[in-house]
């Protein structure tokens, strides 16, 4: 008997079932297909404007920083301002996300936004988020050439652009949008839910930012609610 | 039971009160009688918690059957203790799980059983007592009373009505004192570490009086405070509410010559 068969048999013995019972199978199939929602906190259920305000508060509470701009064309100036604020080189790496490609980066003059293989020496990166979640100030990023996962973790400073209309009130809305984009019961290799910069409190419970991931997380919300 | 007819209460003394400090039970009787109850005390030994918590379920069951029988004639069963109260009210039905003969009796018994202060406030609707005591006191929440029976606001409410008594909350009033029944003798050093912290929290309030609703906790905390030479008197909440505080406090000498107090 393979380990798999052993374990399944042991589970079935303990539960007093054969595994062939139709009602049980249906219950499981129905739950997976129907993915019923549970308790959703009221805090993220306000108006779109209230959601954005909550999102901004929660990002800051998680030690991230946040800026709101009206138009993608305003993004380069905001990125430049962030880098200047912390005396960082005017350079960042991005993936091939068309939303980032379409931004008129040249508007910020000296700012060099490049694509290409991950460069461990690059201090800053720019990603475009799939969504934001107001309930906890969380960003949702998906893997792939558009926004390579390593850009979320290797550089010291991570700048994430998110569209205001993609800021949801709760996680449940994000799961639904992921299903709509990628298909039912299918996901890209990695989905990162990111809430603030990397941190550790392992040394005498002292909170320090920048453990292994980025020290700084800067969120740029584009557009109106 | 028709309005106006006095409630018949069977007092569950608890073995510690019975043996070590009967004044707590007399205080409980006074509070219940003042509130219009008829109090009786059937012959009893223990709630069985030492056996229950040591894994001797058979003994715990046998004792539970005796208690349920002995207290059958009463409208209510009241105990001046959160831990015995918890054993009677929440654990007795557990002991008879799956027993069609005894479980209904255990459920009925549990439904009519209460910790003393919770009975006074939640069942009888008492909002104040007629007592006075000039002192600054602090109150310790016994774990079972708090977490199994929801006793927290009620004693504070009634203590608030005691003339001259000021209540000062300690840090972590709802954290265990380290008694834990057999725990304090099975793991004396760990129990000591826990009660040391409690004693420090009590002393830090500057209160001259420590009050709680469980004699086990009180003996543990009194014993520690006294070993450390801390000048804090320790009494049961029933004694304070009944205005019966002329007795020496827990662990204090009989006919106390006024001990030099700072």
């Amino acid at each position, binding site marked *: 008997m393979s380990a798999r068969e052993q374990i399944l048999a042991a589970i079935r013995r303990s539960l007093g079932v054969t595994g062939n019972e139709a009602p049980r199978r249906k219950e499981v199939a129905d*739950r997976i297909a129907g993915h019923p929602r549970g308790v959703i906190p009221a805090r993220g259920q306000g108006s779109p404007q209230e959601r954005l305000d909550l999102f901004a508060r929660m990002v800051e509470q998680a030690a991230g920083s946040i800026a709101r701009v009206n138009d993608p064309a305003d993004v380069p100036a905001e990125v430049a301002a962030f880098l200047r604020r912390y005396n960082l080189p005017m350079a960042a790496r991005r993936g091939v996300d068309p939303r980032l490609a379409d931004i008129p980066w040249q508007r910020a003059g000296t700012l060099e936004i490049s694509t290409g293989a991950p460069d461990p020496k690059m201090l800053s990166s720019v990603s475009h988020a799939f969504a934001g979640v107001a309930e*906890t100030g969380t960003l949702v990023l998906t893997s792939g050439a558009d926004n390579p996962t390593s850009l979320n973790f290797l550089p010291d400073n991570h700048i994430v652009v998110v569209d205001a209309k993609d800021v949801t009130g709760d996680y449940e809305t994000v799961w639904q949008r992921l299903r709509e984009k990628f298909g039912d019961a299918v996901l890209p290799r*990695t989905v990162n839910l990111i809430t603030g910069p990397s941190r*550790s409190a*392992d040394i005498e419970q002292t909170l320090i930012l920048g453990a292994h991931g980025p020290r700084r997380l800067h969120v740029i919300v584009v557009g109106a609610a | 039971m028709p309005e106006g007819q006095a409630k018949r209460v069977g007092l569950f003394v608890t073995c510690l009160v019975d043996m070590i400090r009967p004044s707590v039970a007399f205080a409980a009787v006074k509070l219940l009688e003042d509130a219009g109850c008829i109090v009786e005390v059937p012959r*009893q030994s223990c709630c069985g918690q030492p056996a229950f918590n040591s894994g001797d379920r058979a003994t715990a069951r046998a004792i539970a059957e005796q208690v349920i029988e002995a207290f059958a004639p009463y409208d209510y069963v009241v105990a001046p203790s959160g831990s015995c109260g918890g054993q009677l009210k929440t654990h007795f039905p*557990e002991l008879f799980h799956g027993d069609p003969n005894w479980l209904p009796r255990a459920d009925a018994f549990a439904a009519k059983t209460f910790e003393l202060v919770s009975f006074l406030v939640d069942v009888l609707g008492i909002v104040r007592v007629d007592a006075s005591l000039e002192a600054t006191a602090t109150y310790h929440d016994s774990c079972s009373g708090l977490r199994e029976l929801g006793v927290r606001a009620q004693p504070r409410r009634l203590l608030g009505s005691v003339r001259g008594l000021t209540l000062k909350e300690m840090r972590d009033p709802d954290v265990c004192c380290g008694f834990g029944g057999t725990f304090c003798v*099975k793991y004396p050093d760990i129990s000591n570490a826990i009660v040391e912290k409690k004693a420090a929290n009590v002393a830090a309030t500057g209160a001259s009086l420590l009050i709680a609703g469980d004699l086990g906790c009180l003996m543990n905390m009194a014993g520690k405070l006294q070993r450390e030479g801390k000048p804090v008197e320790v009494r049961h909440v029933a004694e304070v509410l009944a205005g019966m505080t002329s007795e020496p406090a827990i662990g204090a000498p009989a006919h106390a010559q006024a001990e030099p107090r700072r």
Partner: protein
Amino acid sequence: MTHVATSPHFKENAKAALADTELQNALKFVEVNIVTRRREVVDRLPEFDALRDSARDIKNHTLAHLDLYLEAYEQKVTAAGGYVHYAVTAEDAKRIVLDLCRKFGARTVTKGKSMIGEEIGINDHLEANGIVPVETDLGEYIIQLRHEMPSHIIMPAVHLTKTQIEADFRRAHDKLPADRDLTEATSLLTEARTILREKFLAADVGITGANFLVAETGTSIIVTNEGNGDLTQTLPKAHIVLASIEKLVPTFEDVSQLLRVLARSATAQEMSVYTTLSTGPRRADDPDGPGEYHVVILDNGRSSMLGGDFADMLRCIRCGACMNHCPVFHAVGGHAYGWVYPGPMGAVLTPSLIGVDQAGQLPNASTFCGRCEEVCPVRIPLPRMMRSWREREFERHLSPATVRGGLAFWAFFAKRPRLYGLATSLLARLLALIGRRKGRFGWLPLASGWTRHREFPAPQGATFQAQWKAHKAGRR
């Protein structure tokens, strides 16, 4: 790092812990800090209690259908291009992981924090076979330098002070300038970050645990604050996930119920910094990610907990709230428990995994104060299950003869109220007489455990029942 359980020596371990001043200082953080911060973050979410009910129900439902959810999960992992391996025992799991590491020619392996990894002793096994495992979670890294087990399931190095950590870094990072300043926690972190960054980039294989395994999509989820788990699983050639069978969760909607109580209970955060959903290996158009994705699913005794007295323990989501609130844990710390899982959840789980004859002390070292159950996000009745272990010990005569004898003696009287009344009357009057002058005893025979540390109050005189009888007779 040894995984031979010292749980049978809990009492001795506890004694050493109580005398350890550095440990006692370190534990104050848990007792004061975490408890307060959890209270604050919970108070900010009105739905928290309702979420606990929801989380409990999801776990119960999943456990009741675990065989089917495992099958569904495995099917999706395979469809996504990943591999599922089943391990009945810890030995099986170690063999599978070693085989995989050899397949990838691994020389070094980075590791995200994994309690299952600790449970099976994977680091020792890899080292014994010439492969170097590098812990990347800062707390785990620190204890790896010290060859210790974690003392807490979320904060592995919570038992250490900054001074101790500095000493370990100086000792282990001997190629760095000896006169460098390491007095600040930030400098310690920066040093660890720099050293570990090299390891991340050089590792051949990355091993992580999993907080959840999602049946809907065949996804494994890790929850971290540092980002080490992500670097562990993204950069190397292969990603190995170590998870036990009860990590299964049906859907993402179910996951969000659990996530909402997890970080709040574990670290008093609204949400951990990185919650990462991993599904299969690198895709054709992925510029990064592991070439292969393997999940090792471990039973190690859990299947026999299902449907029994300890089934509720399988709901545990490893948040650590129970130990954060436990007065015994505050007094002795996690190492005293002697194995991988400390505190209340360790007291219930350890006897299940390594046997009650080894770990029987743990469920006895509790006052049943109930704080653990009060804060458990999935409402596990921890004191009740500790009592169940005590019942098993009693039945199997595992408690010491003196304890059994004392209990039997007491039970004889307690079951006979008349005799009990006589005996207690005698004892009470005797002790009252002896103790009347001082009102208490500094020492009592048979009560030395008590009187070692505190005074014992003298009884007031006759028992209440004796006085009541007289009082009633007088009244008539």
